[in-house]
């Protein structure tokens, strides 16, 4: 299919921790289409960041990709050579990290950051690179003459976030990964940033993978949503389908757990503690907390199956 | 008992350190009771043998016995120095940090002046000009006259940061008097830090004391390891004569071992600090 940009097939990522082996991503399957915004939603620790970082083959020192394929335009990212991987990074797929304020090197200024990034991928002259960087800074509503020679400690949190956003579009990537882009910002700046991202999406038609624990943010920006639990993708569908007609009990519980300013103020938190990722329960990962759990749910892990109109669910109830 | 074994297995380095330090302390105790070592010149320059485990020096004296007796010197003086510098350092640092104001400014200036001046030359000059008596207290006093400044400054900065902590503010609001706060809260919080400084100053006391004897600046007391090295190098011909090389090398090995032993003890402080305990 030509409109599918990225295909993740049976990806498993594990970490060595003092207590044992932690499986952060468990045979995950996910597609990202060209030009769409896909929201990856889940509780803290469910593996969404690990999944997203794997797309760039970034894994923490104590982790490793155990198995699976990540096909970007048909090529498996995980089997690229070091040099091919370096060229692929940022040019095809870029990422804005969580708490991105610390993504800038404290001892060089913004101009050097931009030059570094451009020169690593394109044989441009310094002038061309500077002109292009300045125009990008302007597009995120920053003043280049002031910002270019600034160091990280001279910029406010919001300004740093915008610099990093501009830098992410420097090479016109096809996919932009946003890892909790609004987490360390106040509400007003959050809204500002979301508007900015929407603007970028409209202008460049870049695909976006938006990682968040807040379904509301996904609803605002995303076209489709994928729900993740304990390293498994449990439901995929359009934003309307997920919000108004969720098939998986966990999805429903997640949506119900978010308080809404209008309408029903009663909050329904999901009962029970988060299960231990080093020793996950057998069968369906949600069965200890699922109000509809059946006997089969305790022993057999439900696979992600495709329903009509592009939806996918991993639940025994939806057979 | 089982607890001790479990502890030993998890913290091997600390236990080795304790073992080393205890061995030397034992040596020092034994050394105290050894009478003055006489030597038979006819037995001079002998290599290691069953009678003299490390050989004899230029005057026929047993080298191992001298080392054992030297341990007393080294340990007693180092301990005294550490005690003096830590006490003065704590008192000055605590006062300076807690009281603040003019007293703080004066004390800090004194500390900074002392610390800017290179310590080794200063100690050498002081030691050479004061009437020297082979009394450990006097020697320790001279070496401590400078050393307290570093400790005081470190303690002062710790006190300053503890002062800002919220539980101190809470104690003040509760109506505790300043003195009570000082002893019950601030000092208690400082204890692990003071303990670590104490051990570190023992180590640096060993180095500076032995070094000064080695240079010949401190009074003649033939058993200190530094003095042994000094004589070995100048009169004792340990550099030329292989059979008596232990006269020089023996003390060197002991210095290294003792310093390592104390260094290995340092993590013990973290273990005893309730704030850092993981269980």
């Amino acid at each position, binding site marked *: 299919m030509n409109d599918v940009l990225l295909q993740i097939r049976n990806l498993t990522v594990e970490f060595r921790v003092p207590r044992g082996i932690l499986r952060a991503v468990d045979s995950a399957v996910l597609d990202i289409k060209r030009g769409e915004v896909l929201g990856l939603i889940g509780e803290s620790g469910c593996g969404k960041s690990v999944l997203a970082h794997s797309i760039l083959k970034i894994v923490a020192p104590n982790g490793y990709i155990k198995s699976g394929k990540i096909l970007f335009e048909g090529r498996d990212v995980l089997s690229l050579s070091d040099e091919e991987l370096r060229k692929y990074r940022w040019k095809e797929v870029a990422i804005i990290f969580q708490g991105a304020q610390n993504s800038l090197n404290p001892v060089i200024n913004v101009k050097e950051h931009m030059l570094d990034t451009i020169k690593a*991928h394109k044989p441009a002259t310094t002038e061309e690179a500077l002109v292009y960087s300045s125009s990008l800074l302007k597009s995120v509503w920053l003043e280049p003459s002031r910002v270019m020679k600034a160091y990280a400690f001279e910029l406010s949190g919001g300004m740093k976030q915008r610099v990093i956003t501009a*830098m992410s579009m420097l090479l016109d990537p096809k996919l932009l990964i946003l890892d909790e882009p609004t987490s360390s910002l106040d509400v007003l700046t959050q809204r500002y940033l979301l508007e900015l991202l929407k603007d970028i999406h409209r202008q460049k038609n870049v695909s976006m993978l938006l990682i968040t624990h807040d379904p509301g943010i996904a609803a605002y920006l995303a076209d489709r949503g994928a729900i993740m639990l304990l390293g498994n993708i449990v439901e995929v569908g359009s934003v309307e389908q997920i919000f108004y007609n969720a098939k998986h009990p966990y999805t429903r519980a997640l949506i119900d757990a978010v308080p809404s300013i209008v309408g029903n103020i009663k909050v329904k938190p999901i009962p029970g503690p988060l299960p231990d990722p080093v020793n996950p329960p057998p069968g369906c990962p949600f069965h200890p907390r699922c109000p509809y759990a059946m006997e089969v749910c305790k022993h057999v892990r439900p696979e992600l199956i495709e329903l009509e109109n592009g939806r996918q669910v991993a639940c025994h109830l939806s057979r | 008992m089982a607890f001790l074994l479990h502890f030993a297995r998890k913290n091997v380095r600390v236990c080795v350190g304790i073992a080393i330090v205890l061995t030397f302390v034992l040596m020092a105790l034994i050394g105290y009771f050894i009478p003055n070592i006489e030597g038979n010149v006819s037995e001079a320059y002998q290599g290691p043998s069953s009678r003299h485990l490390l050989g004899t020096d230029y005057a026929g004296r047993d080298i191992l016995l001298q080392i054992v007796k030297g341990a007393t010197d080294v340990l007693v003086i180092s301990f005294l120095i550490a005690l003096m510098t830590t006490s003065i350092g704590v008192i000055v640092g605590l006062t300076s940090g807690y009281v603040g104001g003019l007293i703080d400014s004066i004390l800090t200036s004194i500390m900074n002046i002392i610390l*800017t001046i290179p310590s080794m030359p200063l100690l050498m000059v002081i030691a050479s000009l004061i009437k020297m008596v082979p009394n450990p207290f006097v020697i320790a006093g001279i070496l401590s006259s400078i050393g307290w400044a570093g400790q005081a400054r470190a303690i002062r900065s710790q006190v300053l940061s503890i002062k800002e902590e919220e539980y101190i503010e809470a104690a003040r609001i509760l109506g505790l008097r300043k003195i009570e706060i000082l002893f019950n809260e601030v000092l208690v919080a400082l204890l692990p830090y003071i303990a670590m400084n104490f051990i570190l100053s023992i180590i640096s006391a060993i180095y500076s004391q032995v070094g000064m004897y080695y240079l010949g600046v401190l009074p003649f007391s033939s058993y200190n390891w530094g003095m042994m090295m000094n004589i070995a190098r100048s009169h004792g011909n340990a550099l030329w004569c292989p059979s008596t090389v232990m006269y020089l090398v023996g003390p*060197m090995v002991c210095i290294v071992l003792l310093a390592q032993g104390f260094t290995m003890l340092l993590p013990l402080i973290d273990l005893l600090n309730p704030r850092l305990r993981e269980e």
Partner: protein
Amino acid sequence: MNWVIRRFLFFILTLFVVITSTFFITSAMPGNIIDTYVSERIREGFSVEEAYRMAQALYAINMSEPLLVRYIKYLKNLLTGNLGTSYMYSGTPVFTILIYAVPWTVFISSISVVISFTLGIIQGLWAAYSRKSKISTLMTGTASFLMAVPNYVIATAFLLVFAYHLGIFPRGGAYDAWIRPGMNLEFVASALYHAVLPVMSYIVATYPGWLLLMRSNTIRVLGEDYVIAAEARGLPKSRITYTYVARNAIIPMITNLAISLGSIFGGATFIETIFTYPGIGMFLSQSVGAKDIPMMQGCFLLITVATITANFIVDLLYGKIDPRIRAIR
């Protein structure tokens, strides 16, 4: 600006304290060397006046004058470079000896600091990058061990093994006595040959500290977000290693380097004495042993004044290197 003035005042104050206290310690304290010398001469049979005259000739101090006058004379002498006459080297002005000694000290100290620092940071960086490997663990363990060995033990060991047992390197001195000093190849070669052991001792004694410091700094920096972000941006490895990792790891160490540079004059006392290397440190040791007051005073003043001044200059320069420090000040 305010800070610079305060620092300068502190500098002047320290200088003043050092110069004054040196004067008092050496000539004004009771039980000092002058009195000891005089009482010894009196016991030998000289009269009191003769004894004092001898002391004055030897130590250039007139005890009959009031304290303040002596102090002013002392200050005047200092300003004109008159540091007295050495007792050990009968009649040679202290100033002359110091002029001779300073280049040797600066020579070995500066080479040592530069090599030690450079070696330490290169190896520290490498040790951090390959910290899972066995070699790295071995290097770190050895470095930790060496840190606990005092520099005079290392120097003595080198002297014993390389100079006496193996005879590869000379046992002392700055150059072979039969060579004429000058800009000729023989002299330079001999000087370098004699400098090897002292420099090696200094390096072995100090570079473990740099290594461990650089290693732990680098490990910390490697875990920082901006390094991972740089990798995600597809930057070449060399650029990341130097501009993103090494630069950030070295910056906290600049203070330490500054202190090391500041103590170039005073820190080599042990090593120079053990290798009988004619630097200021060695002359200080000798003069202490021989109770040669003018020499001792001169060496001490030179070492101290040089160290304080060097620290002051380095302090001023430090602000220029790290832009963050400039902002704080």
